[in-house]
């Protein structure tokens, strides 16, 4: 007699086959980390295009998995989220935003990354993915902490380290590391 169906195990297997947690975490985490590290002055792609592009990359990776493994989300959630992030980044990058909401300047640069974190949260919600939702919360806390402690510095080095940059940077770096560890765990589940 064959084994009975274990819905929880089956769901984990399907999620691992799709790399549903690791792809968004690694890609969005790495892109966010890149822009924070360069103070949003990257020569690569301007941040208001780069952050939406991260979600297009997630969509492309998931599309490739769907074609090769035969399992996928079957819709264009990540593309829709990319478009929403594009609109949101365009808005927070605009002069209009700074003029209408002058107090929001106190949240810079964290507010620029907020659309990407909300986008990650939307992916987590669509997948009912608790691990991704937890990391979305950690990234949001990192951004808020960076804004709250924007005038504080960490001393004892050659030059004082700004917490406004360091805290979000740490949060995004941890997300990337967690995503890479998750990628290995997903491969182990698929291989087992």
């Amino acid at each position, binding site marked *: 007699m064959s084994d009975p169906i274990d819905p929880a195990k089956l769901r984990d297997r399907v999620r691992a*086959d799709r790399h549903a947690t690791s792809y968004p975490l690694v890609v969005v985490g790495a892109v966010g980390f890149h822009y924070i590290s360069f103070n949003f002055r990257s020569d690569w792609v301007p941040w208001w295009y780069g952050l939406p592009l991260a979600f297009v990359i997630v969509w492309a990776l998931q599309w490739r998995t769907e074609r090769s493994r035969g*399992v*996928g989300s079957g819709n264009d959630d990540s593309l829709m989220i990319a478009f929403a992030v594009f609109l949101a980044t365009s808005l927070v990058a605009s002069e209009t935003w700074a003029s209408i909401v002058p107090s929001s300047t106190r949240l810079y640069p964290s507010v620029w990354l907020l659309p990407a974190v909300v986008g990650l949260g939307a992916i987590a919600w669509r997948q009912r993915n608790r691990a991704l939702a937890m990391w979305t919360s950690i990234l949001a806390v990192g951004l808020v902490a960076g804004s709250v402690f924007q005038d504080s510095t960490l001393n004892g080095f050659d030059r004082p380290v700004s917490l406004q940059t360091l805290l979000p940077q740490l949060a995004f770096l941890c997300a990337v590391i967690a995503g890479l560890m998750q990628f290995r765990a997903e491969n182990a589940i698929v291989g087992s």
Partner: protein
Amino acid sequence: MTGEHPADGLDDTVHQRHRLGVLVVLAESKKADFAYLKMTLGLTDGNLGRHLQVLADAGLVKLDKVFEQRRPRTWVTITKAGRAALTTELEILEDLIERARQTRP
């Protein structure tokens, strides 16, 4: 009707374990092909084909036969009715487990 046993609400179309497995996989991924379902659930071509036809006839899944790179491929998608049927099935099973726990000596 009040006083009905929860097991009365189980739908045989969904409750069969392989069909339940198909719906669980599709509820998580939304879309899977025949080969993936066969491999994940450990079924034969004929067995899976029969179960998919039962689910499709009940309107719980949708079958799309396409040609990709000159090869036939069958994509299976869960319908809204399929998702609702799976939710009902899992709620009833949870209810049954809860009842069994309460009556355990």
